[in-house]
C-alpha cells in the first residue's frame, strides 16, 4: 500500500506509520483486536482534543483574571514569576504519576492535572503583559474617568494580547503533551498508541507520535489566528512602522 511507495530504511518506518493511520490491521496480540485506521485515530484524537480544550479554557478562566488583576495592581510580581518558573520545573510524567498514585484515574482527574500545567505560563504572561502596557495610555484612561475594571478590560487587556497569547500557546503545548501521557491514567488519548507498543506495534507508536505532533501544530495554528484577530489594529500598525523604520 502507501508504505510500498516509500523508500526503504527509515522512510519505511514512517511509511508504515502512515499506513497504520489510514488502514486497520491486526493488533500485535492477535486478529481478535483490530487497531489503526482513521476511525480509531479520530476516536483517540477526539478524547484528547476534548480534554485539552476543556483544560485550556479552565486554565485561562483561572489564570487570566488573576494575572490581569495582579498586574493591574502591580502586586505579587515575585509570586507571578515564581509560579511561571515552578511550572517549568514540574515534570509532566511526575504530575501524572503522582495523580495516579494519590488521587485516582479517569477523565476528570486527567483534565485537572493537565489544566495545572496550563496555568503558569498564562498567569505569568498576563502579569508581564499588563505591566508592560503603556503607562501613558492607562493614565489617560484614568483621566477621562474610566473605572479600574474598565481600564483592565478596555486598555490593559487589549494591549497585553500578544504577550497573553504567547502564554496561552505555551500552555496549549504543555496541555497537549500532558494529555498524551494521560493514557497512563486510564484515559484513551493518542498517547495510548505511544505507550502500548505491545498492542499497536512500533508502527502504531510512530503513528501516535505523528498524530500528536499534528494535533499540537493544529492548535498552534488556530491560536495564532485567534491572536491575530484579538490583537488591536493599532498595535499591529505600531509594530509594522517600528519594523519599517528599524
Amino acid at each position, binding site marked *: 500500500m502507501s508504505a510500498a511507495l516509500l523508500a526503504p530504511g527509515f522512510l519505511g518506518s514512517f511509511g508504515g506509520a502512515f499506513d497504520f493511520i489510514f488502514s486497520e490491521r491486526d493488533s500485535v496480540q492477535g486478529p481478535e483486536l483490530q487497531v489503526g485506521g482513521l476511525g480509531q485515530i479520530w476516536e483517540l484524537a477526539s478524547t484528547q482534543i476534548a480534554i485539552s480544550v476543556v483544560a485550556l479554557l479552565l486554565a485561562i478562566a483561572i489564570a487570566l483574571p488573576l494575572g490581569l488583576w495582579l498586574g493591574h495592581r502591580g502586586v505579587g510580581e515575585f509570586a507571578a514569576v515564581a509560579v511561571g518558573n515552578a511550572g517549568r520545573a514540574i515534570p509532566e510524567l511526575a504530575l501524572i504519576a*503522582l495523580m*495516579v498514585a494519590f488521587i485516582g484515574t479517569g477523565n476528570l482527574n486527567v483534565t485537572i492535572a493537565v489544566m495545572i500545567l496550563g496555568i503558569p505560563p498564562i498567569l505569568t504572561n498576563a502579569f508581564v503583559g499588563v505591566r508592560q502596557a503603556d503607562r501613558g495610555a492607562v493614565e489617560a484612561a484614568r483621566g477621562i474617568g474610566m473605572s479600574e475594571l474598565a481600564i483592565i478590560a478596555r486598555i490593559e487587556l487589549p494591549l497585553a494580547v500578544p504577550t497573553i497569547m504567547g502564554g496561552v500557546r505555551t500552555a496549549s503545548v504543555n496541555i497537549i*503533551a500532558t494529555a498524551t501521557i494521560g493514557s497512563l491514567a486510564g484515559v484513551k488519548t493518542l498517547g495510548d498508541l505511544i505507550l502500548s507498543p505491545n498492542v499497536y506495534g512500533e508502527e502504531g507508536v510512530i503513528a*501516535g507520535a505523528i498524530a500528536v505532533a499534528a494535533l499540537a501544530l493544529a492548535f498552534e495554528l488556530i491560536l495564532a489566528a485567534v491572536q491575530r484577530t484579538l490583537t488591536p489594529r493599532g498595535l499591529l500598525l505600531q509594530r509594522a512602522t517600528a519594523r519599517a523604520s528599524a
Partner: protein
Amino acid sequence: MSGSLLELLADVQIREAGTGATTCQGRNEAFCPGFVIDNIGDYVSPFLEHVLLVIGSVLIGFAVAIVLAILSHGRRWLIPAFIGTTGVLYTIPSIALFLLLLPITGRGTLTALIALALYNLQIIYRNANSGLANVPGSARDAGRGMGMTDRQLLWRVELPLAVPEIVAGVRIATVSTVAIATLAIFAGAGGLGEILYNEGIQRDVFKTNIVFGSVLAIALAIACDGLLVLVQRFAAPWRKARAL
C-alpha cells in the same frame, strides 16, 4: 484480622526475598523512607543518566544556538527563518519528538540528546538573538570609535553585553530540560523516568518511587537553577542577575 495477617505474611515474604523490605513498602504507603535507604544504590544510575542527558543536551543546544545567533547577527534576514524553524520544533510535544526520531536515530541516549538539544536550542537562540539586538548603540559606537573591527566589536562588546540574556536563556532551558528529560525513558534512554515509570507506575503504582522520583527531578531543577544564578552573577558582575 485476616487482612493484617496477610499483610504480615507479605512482609515476611518480602523480607525473606532479601530486598531489605520494610513494612511500609508492603502496604504501599505514600512514602517509605526505609525502602529508599535500603535501595539507595538503585537510584544512583538513573539520576546520573538524567544529569548527563541535561548537561549534554544543554551544551549541544548552547553551542548550536550561539553559532546560529552569530551567523544571523550579521545577516538579519536569517533571523525569521531560524526563529520559525526552531519555533515549529518547540510546538511538537516532547514525547512525540522523542518517538519521531526513533526511526532515524534508534532507541537510546542519542535520540534523547538530539530531541532535548532541539528544545534547548530554541530557547537559547531566542535569548541570544535578543541579547545581541539589545546591545546599546552607544556601546557599539564607542567600540567603533576605538577602531574595532566588526569581529572585535562582536567578541569584545556585543557578546559580553549579551551574556546576561544568554545565561537567562540557559537557565530556562536547563530547568525545562530537567523536567522534559523524564520522558526520555520512552526513547529508551533511562533517566529519572525509569524510577517514575518502570519502577513506579508499572510496578503496581509503587508510591514510594513515584514520590522519590518526583522529588529528585524537582530538586535537580532547583539545584540547576541556583547554580545558574551564580553563573549569571559571575559572568556579568557589572549587572545584577535578573531573569524572568
